[in-house]
């Protein structure tokens, strides 16, 4: 007989409103800490959320008033689901970014990412799609209008087919949402042939975002298998995005690429070649690159469903309360 009493006592302690307050304060403190300090993972929030879940579950199990008030019980169960889903979300979410040159394929690698400890990263690594090109119009100002990005979905398990994504309409693959962003720019393409007959490599250099860094279109990079540091700058006189009329983001019609290695300097147009002791560098032409943000959180539709159920149940509970006892009775 002692065991059920101990269990009831434990349940009462766990259902305590004081514990609710402690969990909420802990939750708020962690939110502030994670916001202020970049090195703290948001998965830490799962701890106070778990405590809140246990607190709520104990209240549901122990409070007798729930047994005859179905709507109130449904509301609290929806609330419990909500808290558990939030905890699950912090443990399994992913946020990240990537950049793809026009014609390049996504091979599962992100530039930056922030993910929960239980995020299934292998799913992301298996995804394949190609950036076929994009168009961005600018209103006078210049003010960026909507992005229209042509994408080819290639796998896994999909028949290759093309779609268009925009700022509001992402590419969704296996629950990952890829949004095109205003972070885009120019990408000179080079062919690098190492001296001694090694394999030729084609690659692009993503210059800083345009027009954000309009006057800083330069970047330093290293050809594969060498220690060279090549400073590369895009130079053109044309106004791409005019402040007084509608225009479109596009590569300049005439441009030069300035290369510098130490004191040596070269100016190249498409097809131009630089012979170096380590190999031959050929400038192939200028393309655009697009930056994407990627977001994954499987809990979102379930969170919305739980919210709707909670709102509906609370509404039903108060409806029945007011219907039974009118305020002016």
């Amino acid at each position, binding site marked *: 007989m002692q065991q059920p009493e101990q269990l009831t006592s434990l349940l009462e302690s766990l259902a305590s409103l004081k514990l609710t307050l402690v969990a909420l304060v802990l939750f708020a403190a962690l939110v502030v800490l994670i916001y202020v300090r970049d090195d703290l993972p948001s998965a830490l929030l799962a701890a106070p959320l778990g405590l809140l879940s246990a607190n709520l579950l104990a209240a549901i199990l122990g409070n007798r008033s*729930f*047994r*005859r*008030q*179905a709507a109130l*019980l*449904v509301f609290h*169960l*929806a609330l419990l*689901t909500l808290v558990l889903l939030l905890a699950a979300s912090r443990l399994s979410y992913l946020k990240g970014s990537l950049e793809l040159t026009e014609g390049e394929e996504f091979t599962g690698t992100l530039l930056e990412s922030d993910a929960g400890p239980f995020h299934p990263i292998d799913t992301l690594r298996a995804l394949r799609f190609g950036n076929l090109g994009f168009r961005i119009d600018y209103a006078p100002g210049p003010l960026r209008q909507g992005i229209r990005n042509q994408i080819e*979905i290639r796998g896994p*398990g*999909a*028949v290759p*087919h093309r*779609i268009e994504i925009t700022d509001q*309409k*992402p*590419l*969704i*693959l*296996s629950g990952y949402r890829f949004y095109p962003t205003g972070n885009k720019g120019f990408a000179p393409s080079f062919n690098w042939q190492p001296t001694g007959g090694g394999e030729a490599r084609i690659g692009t250099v993503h210059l800083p975002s345009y027009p954000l860094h309009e006057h800083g279109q330069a970047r330093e990079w290293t050809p594969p298998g060498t220690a060279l540091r090549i400073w590369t700058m895009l130079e053109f006189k044309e106004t791409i995005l005019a402040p007084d009329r509608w225009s479109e983001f596009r590569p300049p019609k005439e441009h030069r690429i300035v290369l510098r290695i130490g004191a040596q300097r070269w100016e190249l147009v498409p097809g131009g070649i630089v012979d170096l002791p380590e190999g031959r560098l050929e400038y192939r032409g200028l393309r655009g690159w697009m930056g994407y943000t990627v977001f994954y959180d499987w809990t979102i*539709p*379930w969170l*919305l*469903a*739980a919210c*709707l*159920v909670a709102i*509906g*149940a609370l509404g039903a509970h108060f409806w029945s309360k007011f219907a039974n006892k009118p305020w002016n009775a």
Partner: protein
Amino acid sequence: MSAVLPAPTVTRRLALAWFSLGLTALGLSAMFAVILVVARTPFLGQGAGLFRTALVLHVNLAVLVWFLSMAAAIWILSGDIRGNVGWPAFWLAALGSAAMVASGFSQQALPLLANYVPLLDHELFMAGLASFALGIGIAAAAGLAVWHRRPPTTLHLAAGAAMMALAVAAVVLVTGFMAGTATPTGVQIGIDDRLWGVGHSLQFVHVLLLMGAWTALGEAALETTPRLRRLLPWLILGTLLPAAGGALLAMMHGPGTVEYRNGFTELMRWGSWPAPLLFAAGLAIGLLRVGRHRRLNADELGLALSLFLFAAGCLLGANIRGESLAVPAHYHGTVGAITLAYMLWLRRIGVDLGVASDARSLRLPSIYGLGIICLVAGLAVAGELGVPRKATHADLGVDSTAYFATMGAAGIGGFLALVAVAGYAVLTAAGLLEALSPRKPGARRDLRLPAIVLALTLVIGGGLLLDRMPGGNNEKLATEAHVQEMKLKEINTRFQQGLVMLHARQYDHALTAFHRVLQLSPAMPEAYVNAGFALIGMKRFREAHDFFEGATALRVRQVNAYYGLAIALEGMHELPAAIAAMETYLHLTKADDPYRRKAEAAIWEWREALRDKP
């Protein structure tokens, strides 16, 4: 007279559980049908991504789970099946049904729109279907084992005949899946071929039990037609015998063969409807006689609608030409007749079993019947206009006034029927659950379990629905593309098989292959032409003529169709028309066509034959 035989408590609870499963399936099928109606109705219609998955689940829940759960409940009540066999059978069927529905939410579950038993290509769906079939099979076997213990009333006879028909369907199902991967002539056997026989055999189960439902509902009408009452056992036997022929057919011929396919088609075409239609006509006369003395009650009005729907469905079935909306018009007529009869019957049985009846549900079956009549009429007229089946409004892109009027009527009828079914399912299920509850009268009710079930159902169901909401999910486009690719692959394989069979003079197998091609791609003139040549090989000139005409209607410059048409007309001894068709062929064909000289020789020969005629 009672709607069923009185049953002890154990049997009563088991039967109520089966009724609850059937009602849940009916309610869920209505939910999935909402997606179908929205996608089919011109003013609402969007090519919803869920259309084909919803179609598969709607058909399986409405025609398999709802009908067969009702059948199992009736078998349990009429056979007094005990819980030690009955409950495992019930749980197998219930868990199987749940698995089938759950599989619909998987992105990998690709719909296969096979005839009679459409499927989702997913292990969970297949396992669920097998589990459900096993549960129903056990219920029928247990019922058959104790069937002889009860006095042989007409209702008992109909229930027994339906169990025997299900046993036949089980034999057909097993033989269908025991067959190898190809027919003796090398034609691949697909899942549609394997389910063809059992799909047809199940129709006999449904009509036999429909006759049972009509017997219970039309008691007053039968009182006024004593000859019909005497004839009734023979009518039941007249439906059971052709059903039994299915077992013989399955043992003699393997799935995928022409004999198998045509055999089951003919069996259903000539065996399944005459006796029920005769019974319906007799009951209609009986109802008219009853109506002369008093006003018909709600159940009798519903029965009249059920009889009308069945007759309409049979008439529309006789008028089917090709793969148009006339096909769903036909089966919504017959299926609607059964659903309506079961809705009325279930309410009557519920009263007999002590289930509280909600007065608000009294008129709902008749409202459902009127809605279905409107739907059937709309689909039938649209079928006459040549609108193809298994496609959404967005797929079709038709904008004629007649199309909008007929499909609009079908949509309104569909919505009316769905609202009535949903209301009926909720109100009746509430009564059934109350009756199943072990709570003692007067005890305060603990609402925790229902609240937990409700909260979980709403959150899980809502989450799944939001997760699979069409629009913006590019993977669904990929899935659609995959389905299309699979379809094209099968069309190509079947077409090549047909050509090989045609050249090998295996005309019946060639015809089977081209028939399948036309099911998958109804607007393919090449398949019409080759099916026509297969029919010429089988000396079925009139049918061949129709196929060649079909090909030219689809593509005016389908040159070889005119050649075939001329040969078919020659076979029909219509030489002037044959000459005209062959001249059209010569006019359209190239100068170096290898058949040109044969065509010229044929024209010369036919002209000589006409000259020689007196």
